[in-house]
């Protein structure tokens, strides 16, 4: 038995490193003057104009075929672009989900028509999607979905509710995971995925304000919404396999440990001039963790490039990344002599307050900590 999960060493890619300079210069110019507390929103920050500019530069759909608007770049090159966007705290939310998972899913399972219609618009930074998985009664237990797409003449009639749908109010379409036959008791069987145009009648999007006061969550209700037959992605009834692959895309990226770079940089800046032993040790520890996670995450990207199954690898990176990121506010609190009535640390405190408020999400979104650890345990042969 080989229980240990190991990650391939990925050789430095000269093209990707050249690209790093390019994307860095672009981000520096675009984000000049943006405050750390805005940067801390990073991949939850929505800015359609920024997404279009990224698209124009060829930084979305980077690995996709040119005939679908992609750029046929390597995963290593895409990796550099997304990690630089995250580290800089660029507002990538508009296109992030489409680039990360909806596009790749269409590329893998979509019809020729779907690929031609949607992929070029996604790559241009003009077409945004949201994830239609969670429901009021189906959170971690995704197979309990009740939203139903009843096959009818020419398409489906959809009824049900999706919840915690990030960016539904800004998205053009939802990749809806739903039941097309059977009952919730059938679990994974009888499920499918539809790419639903959110402007269709019968769909209502209601905002939910998050703990930090931001609006990205939504509740999306479907009431006899008619969705045309050509919205079906992949095979009817094959939804579970497809959605598991979609989740693998969702979990594989470096956003799972780079959400807090704005706070880490802010912390390092505060400490730089007067760093004592405790600060050196604490920042060094963050370095040892991030350097390790980057090595692992780049290994995941290389495995995906080679068509290998990187599910356990990505799951471990996400689990470790969330633990690290959730520890960062307290690392900062232990090092910075701050007090709410001290005006010199007020900006840092507001950055800290924002990051603290969103840390619970790190081990919830994209699969809870308990679900991830269950997946890791399955890999160990325990389930």
């Amino acid at each position, binding site marked *: 038995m080989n229980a*240990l999960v190991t990650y391939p060493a990925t050789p430095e890619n000269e093209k990707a490193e050249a690209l790093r300079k390019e994307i860095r210069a672009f981000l520096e110019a675009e984000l000049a003057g943006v405050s750390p507390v805005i940067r801390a929103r990073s991949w939850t920050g929505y800015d359609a104009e920024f997404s279009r500019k990224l698209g124009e530069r060829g930084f979305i759909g980077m690995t996709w075929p040119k005939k679908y608007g992609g750029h046929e770049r390597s995963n290593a090159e895409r990796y550099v672009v997304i990690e630089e966007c995250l580290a800089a705290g660029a507002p990538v939310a508009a296109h992030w989900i489409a680039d990360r998972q909806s596009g790749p899913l269409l590329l893998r399972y979509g019809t020729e028509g779907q690929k031609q219609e949607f992929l070029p618009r996604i790559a241009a930074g003009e077409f945004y999607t949201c994830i239609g998985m969670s429901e009021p009664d189906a959170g971690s237990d995704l197979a309990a979905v009740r939203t139903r797409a009843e096959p009818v003449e020419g398409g489906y009639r959809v009824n049900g509710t999706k919840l915690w749908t990030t960016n539904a109010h800004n998205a053009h379409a939802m990749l809806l995971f739903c039941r097309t036959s059977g009952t919730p008791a059938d679990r994974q069987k009888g499920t499918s995925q539809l790419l639903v145009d959110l402007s269709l009648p019968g769909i209502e999007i209601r905002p939910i304000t998050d703990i930090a006061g931001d609006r990205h969550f939504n509740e999306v209700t479907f009431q006899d919404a008619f969705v045309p037959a050509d919205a079906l992605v992949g095979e009817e009834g094959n939804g579970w396999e497809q959605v598991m692959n979609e989740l693998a895309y969702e979990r594989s990226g470096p956003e799972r440990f780079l959400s807090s770079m704005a706070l880490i940089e802010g912390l390092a800046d505060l400490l730089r001039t007067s760093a004592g032993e405790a600060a050196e040790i604490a*920042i060094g520890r963050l*370095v040892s963790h991030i350097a390790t996670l980057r090595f692992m995450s780049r290994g995941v990207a290389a495995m995906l490039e080679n068509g290998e199954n990187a599910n356990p690898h990505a799951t471990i990176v996400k689990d470790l990344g969330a633990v690290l990121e959730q520890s960062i506010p307290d690392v900062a609190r232990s090092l910075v002599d701050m007090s709410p009535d001290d005006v010199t640390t007020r900006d840092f405190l507001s950055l800290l307050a924002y990051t603290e408020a969103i840390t619970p999400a790190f081990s919830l979104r994209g699969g809870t900590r308990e679900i991830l*650890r269950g997946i890791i345990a399955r890999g*160990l042969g325990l389930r």
Partner: protein
Amino acid sequence: MSETLDLLTDAAARLFGSDSEDKTARAARDGGNVAAIWEQVVDMGLPLALLSEEEGGFGLSAYEALQLIRISARNGAAVPLGETMVANWIMARAGLSVMEGMATLAVLPAEAIGEDGRLSATGHWVPWGRDAETLVVLAGDRVASLAKGSFEAKAVQDGNRLPRADLSIDTVLEDGSVAARPASLDDVTVRAAMALVRALEMAGAMAAILEIAVDYVNQRTQFGRPLGKFQAIQQQLAVLADEAAAANAACDLAASQWGATVPVLSAAVAKARAGEASAPVTAIAHQVLGAIGFTEEHRLQLFTRAIWTWRNEYGSEREWNRMLGQAAFGAGGTLWSWLTGPALSRTKNAGEAA
């Protein structure tokens, strides 16, 4: 992975795993003889594995050669393979002749070697200092090699019973056994090389611990089902797997950067990250194995206790994290630009020659 490495790793795993009762590992802890297994290590050519073919090695990349250290620890082998490989690597760099016998090394103060060529010093906590055929000494601008018997070695008590010794040296260095010390082999670099050896050993031991824990929870039944079927146990073992994976990955990062010289910063990452993983890995394994894992008889302690010694040797997390922090602050610019720079992220192909 190259074909040579596949053959070699299989053979090494067979060799180190052949002692199903851990007799050698236990003997080493009782001050006994490990010569029998070392003979086989020599037969396989492992002591020279870090060297180029011109230097007497067999053309493995450093990344590949360093895997052998992890494999030996994963199989519970109690041999100074890492010490010997690094000692030979230093000897080759200094132009001294390499050797197949057990070797170890000590970094001593600059004044240890006098003008007259006399080496006079004490060395503390030298791993395998009583057993090694050769002691490689780095002092000031010199590298020297001493044969067993030309110095006094007294065993010191390691709390986890690994063979360590204090040395008392007073000898005139023979011609041909001393050379100029290459500038690239300063004290920090040599310490980092051995820190990486210990990190690799810890990573290998963690892989073994993970396997021991998984086997145990699959076999042990309580409340009518195997322990591994309980979610509480599954969640704990997932954390063990996470930490073991991180420790191993940190070592792979450093190993993939080992080239003409030692990658000091990524070796620091490896030792610090593996050291940090050591607490959850050993604690969880002992928790799930219960009382049986707390016995001398069970092999779990051969791995967990070795880790508890290794994590303190050649710099603990505190020392290496501090060094990383100082380097990060000293680099100027953003932390991110330094993290993504060559020192911590340039890696080579697994098969690329060192």
